[in-house]
């Protein structure tokens, strides 16, 4: 197991130097190909050359690889943490293993700060990491709050602890950051449709995960409108976090219809699904991620999410709607692959 590379990536996260990204990405690829037998087989199958000179050539494993195999670039015996996908398709969980969360924690914290997201008091619409030890989202919440249990308002059965939530809102006049899944926000809104709160100036809401796989932009607009009305914050103060269990870093967008951007230790490509090559500018394609934070698994992940690269350097997430795929009368023997973050 390497600590040198980990130190190098940690340094990069602290002082990102775009000129060094390529070199570091290729070094991580070389390390992972050497230390991760599953990835080595995959690279061999694809005919990947022994040496790469560009991060864009790094083979990306499909997300589902985390369900099929142990994608681990360190000895299994050193595993300390395991994040799991929700496993809603009956195929079991995708698992992301770590020997240490140093890099993961740094990616969460540095990423949050990179986007100048406010360090307000948090109200987390998610379970505390002690109650959801396999949830990467809860872990992220724990990292951002210092694992302050009082900030988490989703109890074990998934219900919102409304009394505690209201108490947190009324605690003091400082701004708040409400952070949770879109579904948790929706649940709260449906439970208390008449709720009207004026959050202090500077408060934000951060929703995640809700519309991945739905492609319901109008629903997102509706949700943001409801959050805005019920919590007294502008639409411009509502953010989306785009992350997944298989990644260590997060991408963020603000408001509706705006690009997602990642921190400097990430890159993305939009891949034409028909040819599996980089899509022409402005064309819709699948997002392929490179995340230096993924030292302990693989840095290249091929997602199933559709997006369009934007002139501002980000991507506009279109989502993916499995229901839109006409299957005909030919019975789909199982649901097609869907990925959800636990």
């Amino acid at each position, binding site marked *: 197991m390497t600590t040198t590379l980990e130190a190098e990536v940690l340094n990069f996260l602290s002082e990102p130097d775009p000129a060094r990204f390529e070199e570091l990405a290729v070094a991580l690829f070389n390390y992972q190909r050497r230390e991760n037998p599953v990835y080595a087989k995959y690279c061999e199958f694809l005919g990947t050359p022994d040496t790469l000179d560009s991060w864009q050539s790094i083979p990306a494993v499909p997300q589902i690889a985390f369900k099929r195999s142990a994608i681990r670039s360190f000895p299994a015996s050193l595993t300390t943490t395991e994040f799991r996908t929700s496993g809603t398709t009956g195929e079991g969980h995708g698992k992301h293993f770590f020997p240490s969360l140093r890099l993961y924690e740094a990616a969460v914290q540095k990423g949050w700060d990179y986007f100048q997201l406010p360090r307000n008091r948090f109200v987390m619409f998610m379970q505390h990491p002690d109650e959801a030890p396999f949830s990467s989202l809860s872990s992220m919440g724990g990292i951002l709050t210092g694992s302050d249990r009082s900030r988490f308002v989703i109890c074990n059965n998934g219900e919102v602890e409304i009394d505690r939530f209201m108490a947190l809102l009324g605690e003091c006049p400082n701004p708040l950051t409400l952070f949770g899944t879109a579904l948790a926000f929706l649940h709260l809104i449906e439970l208390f449709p008449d709720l009207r709160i004026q959050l202090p100036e500077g408060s934000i809401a951060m929703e995640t995960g809700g519309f991945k796989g739905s492609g319901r932009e109008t629903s997102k607009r509706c949700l943001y409108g409801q959050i805005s009305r019920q919590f007294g914050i502008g639409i411009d103060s509502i953010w989306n976090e785009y992350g997944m269990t298989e990644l260590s870093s997060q991408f963020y967008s603000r408001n509706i219809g705006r690009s997602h951007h990642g921190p400097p230790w990430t890159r993305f490509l939009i891949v034409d699904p028909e040819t599996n090559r980089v899509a022409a500018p402005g064309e*819709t394609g699948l997002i392929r991620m490179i995340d230096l934070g993924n030292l302990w698994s693989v840095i290249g992940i091929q997602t199933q999410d559709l997006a369009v690269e934007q002139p501002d350097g980000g991507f506009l997430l279109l989502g993916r709607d499995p229901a839109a795929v006409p299957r005909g009368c030919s*019975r789909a023997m199982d649901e097609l692959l869907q990925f959800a973050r636990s």
Partner: protein
Amino acid sequence: MDLETRIAAIATAAEQFPWLGDLSAPGIARWIGLELGQSLSSTQPLPYGKQNYLVRPLDPILHIVSSNTPHAALQSLIRGIVVGSTNWIKLPKEGLVEVNAFADALPTELRPELARTLPPAWIDEAEAVVIFGSDETVREISLRILPSQRFIVHGHKISLGLIRSECSPDLANRIADDLFVFDQLGCLSPQVLYVAGDSIEFAWRLAQHFEQTRPARIAAAPQHEIAGTLRAFHEEWKFRAATEPGVCFWESPGALAWAVVHDPSPARAPNPLYGTIFIKPIPADLRSAFLRVRRHIATVGVDPLDSESVEIAVRIGAQRVCAIGQMQNPSVTWHHDGQPTLANFVRYVDIEGPAEDWIAPRKTQAPEDSTAQ
């Protein structure tokens, strides 16, 4: 309009649609004769056991059709016209141009009413409702069906192949015929071929054949969502081919036109269709392997078409057995989903007692008819 005229009208309209099969006037007459005997053409009740009977169409018939293939929609409509019903067709929201074209080719009085959104009255008033669609759609519509209405469901099905021969170019061509028509969305296209002998060799030869013959897409390039699903599937199986013993994967170079997957596991795997075929070894325990899907099996294509293949196909639950290459070409007389096609659209009226008691003398009818005029 009498039966003979209806048959002639269907035959004329069907001339533009050769893929519907033999819908010549003699062919239709033969089909009616096979399924309903003389009952549809007879003006008098026919003897049946101790009683007599006649048949009358269920009228009107509502056909709720899906977007995957026009074939099934037109078959259902033609059945309705044959028995003499009024036909209403709820089209998919994107429409089905072939149904419109067929309707336009019919005489006005036989044309179905078409709608892309379902008028509520249609469900209430239909004597029979035929539905092609997903389990969810069927469930939703079924809640609105009364016990007094006949409800004919053509839900999602799977078709498969059973092959006990080598992958010759001829067989590969026939597999392609079954696989690529309607982008594989029809329920009669195979999703998986169970192969005796060296199934990896078979899969490799099939992929080689596809690569050399480069079968073109029937339809336009798939939408982004579909292409995304297909790409995800391709990448998953490439990964599995790299990391799991016995799994092999071949794809059309630089495109999503086709994929051949060799999967040694008897477990079912999702198939995104659009030219995607699984090759698996024939399971040792056929009964167990197909137990959970036997109710969903439509057609089993076999090669060779011999007694052993037919016996296996019937045993695993086939509703139709045919030669590979003919899977998407059922005869007009086929029992769709294992059911009679015309008899489902009529009601049988039994008339008991001596015929002389209830057959109205023709002479007494004539003056009444004259009076009425």
